[in-house]
């Protein structure tokens, strides 16, 4: 969904995508905590924290000249889409490293995947609620993600068929949305799917 709305909180304007992301994280944290316990909920919040920090600080890589000219740029700006992917790559790297070192159990991967599903589903629904868009696209987005989240909560277990289904549901929704299959959120889902598959394969080989 496109960002069409900004909220003014205190002295700054906040993009609706930030609000959607924060709400999504709170819901995902609660869901993982209820189903998998505190340990995995904290693993999820660590991953989220790394993603945000790398995204925010990656302006050092994406726009060095601004930071040198005005160091406060670190506070005012972020690394944009490139920075977001860097953050995602960092989290993916950490998950793969933890799994290699056998610090990440099968249950841990399932918990993280459940968190990712919750973040994506709530983020998409929130973006529809906070922004303007074509009615049909909004309905498809909310219905598809709400149904999938519900189905996953009742039946889902982070096994591979559900990973594929998650990607297929998002592909279907993304096809309707303005950004299509090259939008950041769909690419994120695909990357999450790939990482889960790689870790799953590794766990099964051992």
């Amino acid at each position, binding site marked *: 969904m*496109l*960002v*069409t709305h*900004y909220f*003014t909180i205190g*002295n*700054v*304007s906040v993009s609706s995508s930030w609000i959607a992301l924060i709400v999504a994280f709170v819901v995902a944290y609660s869901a993982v905590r209820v189903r998998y316990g505190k340990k995995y909920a904290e693993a999820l919040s660590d991953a989220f924290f790394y993603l945000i920090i790398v995204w925010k600080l990656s*302006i050092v890589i994406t*726009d060095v000249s*601004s930071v040198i*000219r*005005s160091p*406060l*740029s670190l506070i*005012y*700006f972020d690394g*944009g*889409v490139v920075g977001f992917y860097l953050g995602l790559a960092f989290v993916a790297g950490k998950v793969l490293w933890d799994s290699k070192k056998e610090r990440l159990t099968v249950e841990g991967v399932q918990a993280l995947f459940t968190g990712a599903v919750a973040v994506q589903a709530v983020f998409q629904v929130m973006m529809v609620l906070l922004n303007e868009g074509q009615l049909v696209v909004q309905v498809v987005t909310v219905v598809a993600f709400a149904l999938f989240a519900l189905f996953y909560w009742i*039946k889902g277990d982070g096994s591979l*068929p*559900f990973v*594929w*289904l998650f990607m*297929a*549901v998002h*592909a*279907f929704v*993304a*096809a*309707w949305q303005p950004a*299509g*299959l090259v939008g950041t959120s769909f690419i994120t889902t695909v990357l999450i799917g790939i990482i889960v598959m790689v870790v799953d394969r590794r766990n099964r080989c051992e």
Partner: protein
Amino acid sequence: MNKKIIGYAIAILLVGSMVVMMVKTSLDKTEPIDEYLIATEEVPGLEKGATPPDFELTTLAGDVVKLSDLKGKKVVLNFWASWCGPCKAEMPHMQKYYKKNKAKENVEIVAVNLTTAEKMGIEGVEKFIDAYGLTFPIPMDRDGIVMDQYQVMTIPTTYMIGTDGTIAHKIVGPMDEKKLKELVNNLK
């Protein structure tokens, strides 16, 4: 059993996605008449969709900038002062964006200087503009009237105005080139 059903669901969703993509590409060519271009009654105000107050101010070079003359262009209406930290961080981004996209995006940046709030006077503003090599019009709000009309409390404050002359967004706080680009692209 369960696996089989999920398999079917995945297949249906993927085929569905392809159909939607195909239909969308063929529909995109016949876009409906843009509803924003249909003349509607102007609503004065500072909210989204409202027409902001018109103003006429002079730049340091003596050029007159009148907001209503810019109708038909996308307008980035920025309010700033030379002592403001976030404005200093933002200005190079605006200049860079302006240089690259002025003609291409049918956009004008109007950076109103809050002259009544300046501590170093006109000379300080001149130095600032030279130091940052700013080429977009910088009208001087010498009486602080426009600042009041636009309810500028914190700077930088930027109003994003569409080609129909209505406000799309009010952004408080500095923007970098990426954000500016995204916001202008989404303006009608």
